[in-house]
């Protein structure tokens, strides 16, 4: 364990302006434990009275070594660790990893499993945006929105629990499909949610969108143009708030997204308010996708029948010899994909979530790397925050929507 070292001026000399050394500006530590940093993020602020001159993020307080740990486990067991990276979107992380394994092994996914995956991924997108709305409104002191958005989130978590038994870290998606078929109560539960949610989004908009206090705190704050944003690697709703139309679901469609009709909201101002509007509209579009997927949910198997890479049904084990052998090999040794590497990208609520998976023919992944959106989104923060007040910096951090588990993995 390392001791707490004080940051010496020499280490950060190249990152702060000369005025810090003459004493004109103050170096303030917005430490890892702070109510507004949405997790364990440390920011070193160089302040001139209340204006931010420089902002140096220090990350790594939640670095869990997930990628190296996954190399020590078989492919199925390693999936459990993917839930815990971006913990607001555990289903999306599973999705990306399963798509990567399926591309590596050439596994097919039946249509029913694809539709169920889309429904749960969009529900998780709504749940993540609800937490974003609650916490970033809390940061600009609109405290009642927090309680309302968590009320809806409870309903979504009830649906997750119905389907997989776990509220958050479900590990419901498996390579080849999903873990088991959805129960009978799934459809009425999702329809009940679809009935009440549009009015709830209207309620949140009524509280915030035309509120003069909210407008004052978010208009023209943290502006970034489209070309700069994409050069900095910003993706997701933050990029679409600056006018660049990049949504992985439309540009590189996966899991049947091309058959659903939805729009990608786009704004051009590039400030905090634009990003807020984009995310609220995304919640409505996710409802559209869920409705279409639920209406056209096909019947059929919920998992691929290629038993080299998926476990057979328990009922088959008693009657079929191959099923017994596949079951035994799958759960003891694991499956062996061909040698090679793939990269798969999906659209998480924060941006482009990618998984680079390399296999050496063994049952354990040789190298897994996740391209997490919050890592690159956080890189832009010093540029966005320059020249603003500390209170505006808090609003900017909220609008960029970072999750520290995603940044540090």
């Amino acid at each position, binding site marked *: 364990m390392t001791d707490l070292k004080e940051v010496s001026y020499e280490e950060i000399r190249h990152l702060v302006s000369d005025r810090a050394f003459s004493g004109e500006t103050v170096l303030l530590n917005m430490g890892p434990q702070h109510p507004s940093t949405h997790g364990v993020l440390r920011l070193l602020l160089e302040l001139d009275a209340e204006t931010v001159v420089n902002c140096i993020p220090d990350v790594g307080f939640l670095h869990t070594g997930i990628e190296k740990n996954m190399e020590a486990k078989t492919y199925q067991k390693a999936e459990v660790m993917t839930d815990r990276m971006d913990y607001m979107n555990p289903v999306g992380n599973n999705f990306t990893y399963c798509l990567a394994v399926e591309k590596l092994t050439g596994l097919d996914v039946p249509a029913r499993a694809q539709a169920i995956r889309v429904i749960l991924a969009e529900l998780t997108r709504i749940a993540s945006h609800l937490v974003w709305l609650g916490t970033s409104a809390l940061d600009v002191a609109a405290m009642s929105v927090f309680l309302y958005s968590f009320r809806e989130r409870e309903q979504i978590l009830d649906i997750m629990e119905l389907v997989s038994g776990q509220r958050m870290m479900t590990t419901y998606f498996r390579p080849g499909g999903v873990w088991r078929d959805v129960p009978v109560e799934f459809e009425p539960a999702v329809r009940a949610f679809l009935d009440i949610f549009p009015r709830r989004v209207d309620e949140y908009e009524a509280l915030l969108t035309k509120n003069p206090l909210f407008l004052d705190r978010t208009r023209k704050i943290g502006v970034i143009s489209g070309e700069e944003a*994409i*050069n900095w690697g910003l993706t997701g709703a933050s990029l679409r708030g600056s006018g660049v139309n990049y949504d992985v679901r439309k540009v590189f469609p996966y899991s049947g997204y091309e058959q659903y009709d939805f729009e990608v909201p786009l704004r051009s101002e590039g400030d905090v308010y634009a990003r807020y509007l984009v995310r609220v509209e995304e919640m409505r579009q996710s409802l559209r996708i869920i409705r279409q997927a639920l209406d056209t949910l096909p019947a059929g198997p919920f998992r691929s029948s290629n038993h080299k890479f998926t476990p057979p049904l328990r009922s088959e084990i008693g009657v079929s010899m191959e099923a017994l052998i596949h079951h035994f090999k799958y759960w003891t040794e694991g499956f062996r994909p061909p040698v090679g590497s793939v990269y798969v990208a999906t659209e998480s609520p924060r941006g*482009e979530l990618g998984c680079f998976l390399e296999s050496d023919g063994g049952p354990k992944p040789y190298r897994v790397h996740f*391209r997490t959106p919050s890592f690159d989104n956080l890189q832009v923060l010093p540029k966005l925050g320059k020249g603003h007040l500390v209170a505006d910096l808090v609003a900017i951090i909220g609008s960029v929507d970072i999750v520290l588990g995603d940044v540090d993995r």
Partner: protein
Amino acid sequence: MNEKLQPITQALIEKFSAAPQEFAGETSLVLAVESLSAAAQALHREFGFELLSCITAVDYWPQEEPRFHLIYRFTSVSQALALTLRVPVSGISPAAPSLETEYRNANWQEREVFDMFGIRFEGHSDLRRILMPADWQGHPQRKDYPLGYEEPQYTFNFDEIAARKPFAARE
């Protein structure tokens, strides 16, 4: 997707003598580390790949030459294309040119590769550790770095672990 990518990969193969590799329906290119900067510049300016999706590395220890492969993933939003480049780097004082001036987000991505693998990037403005504490020794994601697995203390091995670690035997 491969048809639109064909002329671009062909141009890169000719200009920088890259070697194509096919897997799972996608082509990736293996490039020498000396041509990396020029290839990245060409991809950014001529071929319209605006987004550098990720930079990562794979360690092939105990193979020494080349020990690491740097992986670059470029995405073109306007043309809906994506391309992977592989750059072999040797194990003895590993180094590669930095892409920070072309793609600004290479800054943190290269810091992470330096932190986890020890590959130095020349021309980087601020190469220091990002995920591990600043005074950490070693590069964790190399294959010769131990996982750090601590044996859990169950009832059947209670006494052995208690002999080694007296404070853990509290429970």
